[in-house]
């Protein structure tokens, strides 16, 4: 098998013959042409890896040939070496500025040409290898991309279907993951006694690992709720589940609650999660009194048998609950300030009626506050309106 194909272009037959002789003896396949036009003609039939061309030739000179080869996308990767009797730096620069890859001054030594051809072919081989690897990488990247898109669709499927209906309430969400998939999750489940179980969680980190753990958090929550009991027991059970199945730096902040539309109460456990707001009469829209559902607590998955605390609050008809993850309020602006809890609370105190319109307003106002900075962490917002 020849080492590669070289096209020798020169109007002097003896030069073509000498170069051909040495190159063939070194194992190359050699094509030849007497001027630029003949060379283009030859390239229409076969594809050389390298062209060695004289400059001064009848019909079409070497500089014109070089320009044509290098301006045609189909041939511009072909290596071009100019053979030139015009020695000196000026003509070298002139040749290279035409787009030639290298120059050999005339008169030349056949051995010198051969050495140059050999080194050029090493370059060509390297480039082919890089192109091959690049193609492999591109294919791999596309596969990963496709898998991520599939995972993102699956993750969206983990979220409650909208419009959301829970005993005595309606709700909606806005879910904006930082990457294609994220570590935020929430769930709202009806309970046999007419109450609703609510959970929102934010898994540490981003991306695939966080997404996998978020699915685990949801399953764990569903299992705990099925066992009956109160949010305190759910938090303890989920903490153990998560501690057993995750690595050192993986845990989740969460807020768990049981909403009782008959007793007009809600019981909740805060596990390191940002405190939700209760907007008294918020479902009616307009400016209303807001309350932060305070509570301190460890994150889930940190350590087994950590103590959690259960809290209680009123939950009246027309009340609105705003649950969110920290990505919504922790975008640093150019002036280094962030929206934070206080800013979001101001926004949430005056929203339109209807959970959908309210959710749009919150996201729009948070974005407007952050301008021009985008959200950088996963962002989840859940708005739940108690029916009248």
């Amino acid at each position: 098998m020849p080492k590669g194909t070289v096209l020798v272009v020169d109007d002097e037959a003896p030069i073509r013959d000498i170069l051909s002789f040495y190159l063939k003896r070194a194992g190359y396949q050699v094509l030849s042409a007497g001027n630029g036009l003949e060379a283009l003609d030859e390239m229409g039939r076969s594809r050389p890896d390298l062209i060695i061309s004289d400059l001064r030739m009848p019909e079409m000179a070497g500089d014109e040939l070089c320009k044509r080869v290098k301006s045609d996308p189909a041939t511009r990767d072909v290596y071009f070496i100019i053979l030139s009797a015009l020695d000196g730096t000026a003509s070298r620069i002139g040749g290279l500025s035409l787009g030639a890859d290298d120059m050999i001054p005339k008169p030349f030594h056949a051995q010198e040409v051969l050495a140059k051809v050999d080194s050029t072919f090493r370059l060509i081989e390297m480039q082919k290898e890089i192109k091959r690897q690049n193609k492999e990488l591109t294919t791999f990247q596309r596969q990963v991309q496709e898998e991520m898109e599939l995972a993102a669709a699956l993750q969206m499927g983990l979220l409650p279907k909208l419009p959301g209906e829970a005993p005595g309430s309606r709700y909606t969400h806005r879910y904006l993951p930082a990457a294609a998939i994220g570590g935020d999750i929430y769930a709202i489940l009806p309970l046999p006694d007419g109450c609703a179980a609510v959970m929102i969680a934010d898994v540490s980190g981003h991306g695939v690992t966080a997404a996998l753990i978020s699915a685990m958090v949801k399953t764990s929550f569903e299992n705990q709720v099925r066992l009956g009991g109160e949010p305190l027991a759910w938090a303890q059970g989920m903490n153990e589940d998560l501690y057993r199945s995750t690595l050192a730096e993986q845990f989740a902040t969460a807020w768990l609650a049981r909403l009782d539309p008959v007793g007009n109460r809600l019981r909740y456990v805060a596990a390191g999660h940002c405190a939700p707001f209760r907007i008294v009469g918020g479902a009616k829209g307009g400016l209303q009194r807001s309350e932060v559902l305070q509570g301190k607590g460890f994150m889930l998955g940190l350590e087994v048998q950590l103590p959690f605390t259960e809290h209680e609050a009123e939950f009246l008809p027309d009340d609105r609950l705003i649950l969110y993850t920290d990505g919504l309020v922790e975008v640093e602006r150019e002036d280094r300030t962030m929206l934070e809890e206080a800013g979001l609370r101001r926004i949430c105190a005056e929203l339109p009626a209807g959970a959908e319109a309210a959710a749009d307003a919150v996201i729009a106002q948070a974005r407007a506050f952050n301008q021009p900075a985008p959200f950088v962490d996963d962002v989840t917002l859940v708005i739940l309106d108690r029916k009248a």
Partner: protein
Amino acid sequence: MLNIQTRQEGTASVVSIQGKVNFEVTAQLRDVIRETVATAQPKLLTINLEGVSFIDSSGLGLLVAARNSVDKSGGKLHLCCLPAPVKKTFDQTNLTNYFSIFATEQDALRGA
């Protein structure tokens, strides 16, 4: 940008952190802490958070993991000089009760 400095104080190692501790920089900080624990094998690792303007859940996770790894090697982890925003995050997550936290670096080093 995160600026991390380490130094030895007798059998204690002190790691001082300046900047925002979030997901982008946890790898860098993790390497420094890991290396400090592995090479100095300190009886006490003190992390000075005075220059930290913000810490997110990844950063908290890293500190928890640091405490666990120091515990395992028979040492102690002390945190000191928490600025107000960091203190707030620690309060919310109850980590104030999980870590040994000191007001000054001297207190943290004495409290061994």
